[in-house]
């Protein structure tokens, strides 16, 4: 799955992409480069413009401004060449329910120009690989949600496309099917396929993608490797749980604990009474734990819990957009918005 003709640039190059639907701007000048052989995750809440971006790259939607190229072919000027190189798996599984699993794949292969024998061989290969061999002769209407997604993904891979585009491949799947699909995507990546993946799930892009682009309201909020993005929030957070302060207020125990943390803190020490927590950033990360524990012990304090946690992509998203996603439902009233708060990001439910 490499060696795309004589083209040597990136698999995808998008610059200043704009798409409007009436007065709504779905994309407001998006830039994106997907290097060959990489897995790029586009992360954002519903309505952020992820699907529009994907549809433009699959030549299903015409952009209103900017450029989008796939292996050097412009989506507007050479849509046929783009279609020959992109395998799309859409947001909801576009399988033909009245055809069997095998017929679905063979049809896609033949429509893509394969002869019958080649389409059959490729279909068998994919059915085996995706654990659909036993179901190959049954009509897809009897398939479970996970099986449908796998079949849909297989359909997108029939022509062994150099660029695989997956639009929210695991949305609506149960956790087990999701992990199963992740493994398939990881295999694809290991084989050197270029994968562009959209997701509402932070853990998904964190696990699969080499490069993450956060989009919100049609704009790129940030991009980089998952590690880089997390590092942007600075040092890991040390959280000390003391439990509810009680009717008399925080008192001496809390003051003593805060004094201990201040010795290790990089920056201020945050006291959150409602959460029963004291926290601060620590440059050295988890390595400070033994020392902090000793100091607390010396001060006669036994915390309920003590943990160091790295920033999550949730935190990054929150920090960059000021909220879980500007078009997502508003955060519950009274929830403090800021890095470190345990606010559930878009799709971050587990």
């Amino acid at each position, binding site marked *: 799955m490499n*060696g*795309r*003709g*004589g*083209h*040597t*640039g990136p698999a995808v*190059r998008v610059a200043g992409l704009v798409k409007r639907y009436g007065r709504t701007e779905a994309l407001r000048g998006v830039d994106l480069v997907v290097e060959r052989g990489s897995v790029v995750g586009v992360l954002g809440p519903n309505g952020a413009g992820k699907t529009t971006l994907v*549809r433009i790259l*699959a*030549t*299903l*939607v*015409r952009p209103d401004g900017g450029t989008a*190229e796939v292996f*050097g*072919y412009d989506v507007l000027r050479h849509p*046929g060449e783009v*279609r*020959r*190189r*992109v395998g*799309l798996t*859409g*947001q*909801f*599984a*576009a399988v*033909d*329910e*009245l*055809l069997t699993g095998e*017929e679905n794949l063979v*049809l*896609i292969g*033949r*429509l*893509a*120009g*394969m002869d019958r024998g080649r389409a059959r061989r490729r279909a068998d290969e994919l059915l085996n690989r995706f654990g659909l061999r036993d179901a190959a002769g049954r*009509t897809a209407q009897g398939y479970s949600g996970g099986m449908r997604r796998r079949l849909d993904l297989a*359909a997108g891979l029939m*022509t*062994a496309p150099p660029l695989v585009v997956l639009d929210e491949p695991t949305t609506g799947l149960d956790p087990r099917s999701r992990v199963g699909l992740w493994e398939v995507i990881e295999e694809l990546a290991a084989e050197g396929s270029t994968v562009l993946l959209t997701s509402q799930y932070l853990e998904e892009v964190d696990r699969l993608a080499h490069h993450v682009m956060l989009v919100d309201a049609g704009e790129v909020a940030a991009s980089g490797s998952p590690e880089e993005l997390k590092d942007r929030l600075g040092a890991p957070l040390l959280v000390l749980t003391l439990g509810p302060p009680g009717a008399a207020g925080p008192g001496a125990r809390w003051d003593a604990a805060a004094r201990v943390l201040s010795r290790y803190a990089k920056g201020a020490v945050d006291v959150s009474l409602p959460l029963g927590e004291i926290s601060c950033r620590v440059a050295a990360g988890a390595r400070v734990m033994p020392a902090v524990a000793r100091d607390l012990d010396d001060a006669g304090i036994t915390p309920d819990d003590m943990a160091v946690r790295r920033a999550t992509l949730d935190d990054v998203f929150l920090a960059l957009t000021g909220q879980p996603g500007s078009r997502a439902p508003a955060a519950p009233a009274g929830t403090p918005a800021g890095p470190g708060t345990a606010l559930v990001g878009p799709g971050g439910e587990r």
Partner: protein
Amino acid sequence: MSTVTATAPPFLPGTETGPRRLVRDGLLVAQRNLRHVLRVPELLIQATIQPVMFVLLFAFVFGGSIDMPGGGSYRAYLLAGIFTQIVAFGSANTAMGIAEDLSKGVVDRFRSLPMARSALLLGRAASHLVMNALALLVLALSGLVVGWRAEEGVARTLAAFGVLLFFGFAMSWVGALTGIWLGRPEVVQAATMTWLFPLTFLSNAFVPTQGMPSWLRPVAEWNPVSATAAACRELFGNPNPFAREGLFPAEHPVLTSLAWSALVIAIAAPLAVRRYRRAAG
């Protein structure tokens, strides 16, 4: 991009385009649609039982009470009308099929493939053609049972069915346009019925136009359904009281029907294809 070369790796999907590819892909889609029919017995029943019901209802309910201007049997007159109505109504299935493919994401999948762009629509029209042929066969058999006959020999009988199938093919492009335009299956269903009923009933399909009010008669006389039904009656040798001195569709029904069908295809097919290419875009 400065370094794009024209040579493609050998395993990339074919670059073949043009009419041959369109026909090949269209047949693949048609084959898929026909498989659907085989797997949903209701569709098959609808396609075969419904025409029989029409023949029986009209033949026995109206059969006795409609006088034919110039004489002749109403049942012999009626069959060509029902043939025409059924092939016209088949376009509703084309419309629904396309609307369902749209709403289920199948259209997106096809549009993202390097296949002939109009193959989904052509395939629909082609499978509709096969379904129409099946319906006509069942209709003709039930017509024979109630006393209808084709009196003019094999060649003219086949010609009549050819005219009907061509008309049905043209109508399926109107159905395709409706389906691709409106998209949502519920809406498409309602919309097709809205134009199909007046189209088929404001004609000579079921009753001769002679009895209609004078302001309505020209509409019925120039209706492509009338021309098609009259063409069949002429080719079958059935009673054909459509004739009026100097009225072109009455004097040349076959030519009129073929011209109508060609015109409808020439208008509806490009519009449907254009709409398909931009679907949901």
